[in-house]
């Protein structure tokens, strides 16, 4: 019951933030005095390449490294006073091997995320936004071994403070740059299997479900850090101000498990984010 409540709280945070965003937009639309929109709404597509490093001690004491890709879809609202971003599909897939190369792990990841950042006017130099991110995702490791595919997975719901900093500098031309940092404050996580590797997909895809472990995630047993550096550029014209960002993101989480069987997962993303204005 406690687990369901915690997951619901996470969902509630996402929904609440999203509703407040929609409410603000509607208020704005209902105001007849507003002739020009104060906000821009964008449909967002992220795509990119990744490299990763996994250490899941339920699977082995080995680092699995590999490469893969990401594809995210979302909706972003840019206003003078805040940024709101709703990523409704966040998909990632990596193919990883340990150093000896004799085995492999398929590493799909799925999630959704809501970000709400308020504008903080800081010395008039930097454009700083700070706020919260609510994130739910699952990271899976599928290991084909000896006629079966064994499944290991983390399902995590979390609330994360986030700060974004935007600036520009001149080097041959004017460059616009964003810097992003977020870390988890609190969350709830499930890990499967509970112990050992009985959670397996049969040779034919049949599944045996045998328990999980769960944790209230705090900085004492869970760390999730994300940093990103982006260069952005507008495309289109004033009537259709689309834009894109090219960036590098480092995302790392570590979750302590029962019996010191911990999981560490790091992903480096080289990403192209496209923003198409839709309002």
């Amino acid at each position, binding site marked *: 019951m406690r687990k369901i409540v915690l997951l619901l709280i996470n969902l509630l945070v996402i929904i609440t933030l999203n509703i407040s965003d929609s409410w603000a937009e509607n208020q704005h639309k209902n105001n007849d005095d507003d002739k020009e929109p104060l906000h821009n709404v964008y449909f967002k597509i992220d795509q990119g390449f990744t490299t990763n490093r996994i*250490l899941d001690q339920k699977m082995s004491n080995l680092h699995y490294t590999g490469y893969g890709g990401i594809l995210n879809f979302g909706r972003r609202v840019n206003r003078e006073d805040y940024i709101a971003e709703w990523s409704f599909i966040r998909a990632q897939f990596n193919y990883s091997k340990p150093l000896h190369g004799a085995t492999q792990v398929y590493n799909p990841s799925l999630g959704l995320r809501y970000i709400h950042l308020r504008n903080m006017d800081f010395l008039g*130099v930097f454009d700083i936004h700070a706020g919260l991110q609510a994130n739910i995702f699952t990271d899976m490791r599928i290991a084909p071994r000896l006629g*079966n595919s064994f499944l290991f997975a983390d399902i995590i719901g979390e609330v994360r403070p986030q700060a974004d900093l935007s600036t520009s500098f001149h080097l041959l031309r004017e460059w616009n740059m964003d*810097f992003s940092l977020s870390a988890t404050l609190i969350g709830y996580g499930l890990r499967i299997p*509970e112990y050992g590797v009985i959670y397996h997909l049969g040779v034919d895809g049949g599944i045996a479900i045998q328990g999980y472990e769960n944790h209230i995630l705090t900085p004492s047993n869970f760390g999730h850090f994300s940093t990103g550096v982006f260069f952005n550029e507008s495309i289109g014209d004033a009537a259709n101000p689309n834009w894109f960002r090219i960036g590098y993101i480092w995302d790392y989480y570590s979750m302590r498990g029962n019996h010191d069987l911990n999981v560490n997962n790091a992903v480096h993303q080289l990403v192209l984010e496209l923003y198409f204005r839709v309002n």
Partner: protein
Amino acid sequence: MCYLKNCYIKTTNILIIISLFFSYSCEKLFMEPDKPADPETIFEEIWTFADTHYSFFEEKDVDWDEVYERYRPKIYEGMTSIELFDVCADMLYELKDGHVNLVSSFDRSRYWKWYLDSPENFYYSIIERHYFKDNQRYLGPFQFLNMGDIIYVYYQSFGNTISDGDMNLLIANLKNKEGLIIDVRNNGGGSTENARRMASRFTNYRYFVGYNLIKYGPDHEAFRENKVFISPFAGPRFTGDIVVLTNRKSYSATTYFAQYMNVLENVTLVGDTTGGGGGLPAFYDLPNGWQLRVSSSRFLDPGRNSIESGIPPDYQIDIDEEEAFKYGIDPIIEKAKKIILSD
């Protein structure tokens, strides 16, 4: 103000570059390094994983610490991979478990004594030449033969998927028949989900088949208990007479299937005791590229008896190889026919 602005911008750029370099490599600082691939470490990894995950130490009365004391002195620096493999394979052999394997690029350790010391009790060529006679139908993973009042089904591996459509067709063929023979001899297992899917077609009520004991910690007897039930399939089912044919090579998921069926009143087991394999396997990747597999759960029947050593049949029938080939008769199939036709 302008000076201050430039200062901030420069500082920011430096911070960004530093953070890029830091983040690119810092995850290694947080992660424990890979274990080395030397013989001592490999041996310790194998022994420890088995110690903390294997599920039958108590049931098989294996003193794993004593096993360690006997085999650890055989490990030395500089031994070849094959020497190391052989020592580790011998150590794992002490567990006497068909689900325990050490797999390398050059060999696979195994325990097959559970069937090598028993009669074969299955000769496919007799079935093919004297029963099928090329008249069998291939229905999904099954070969099935219409024997008049009886349908005979041979299922080679629970690793081959059974679809609902396959089972619907099989049940449709059972209309107006006296009974069904399901031959799972030499079926080495696969997915227990297929076993469950099949069994759900032969009952009209949800029934209890036993207890699944799931390991939840490193202690040898740290098990959590789940009751396992089979629910009837919401579609075509058959609840007439069924005979399941087993031999010692009916292993793992096939033993589960025999257990699921054995509980039903309309089912008779004929042949030999199944091979067992009641522990679902767990795996572990070793630093030198070898893979380790050990049983990591247990299954008890409703009377709390372990199925690890197999499900005994209701009728034990052994095949005399010479006579079987001489007359072209499989006595286990003949017994099954008699049971169905006499009811």
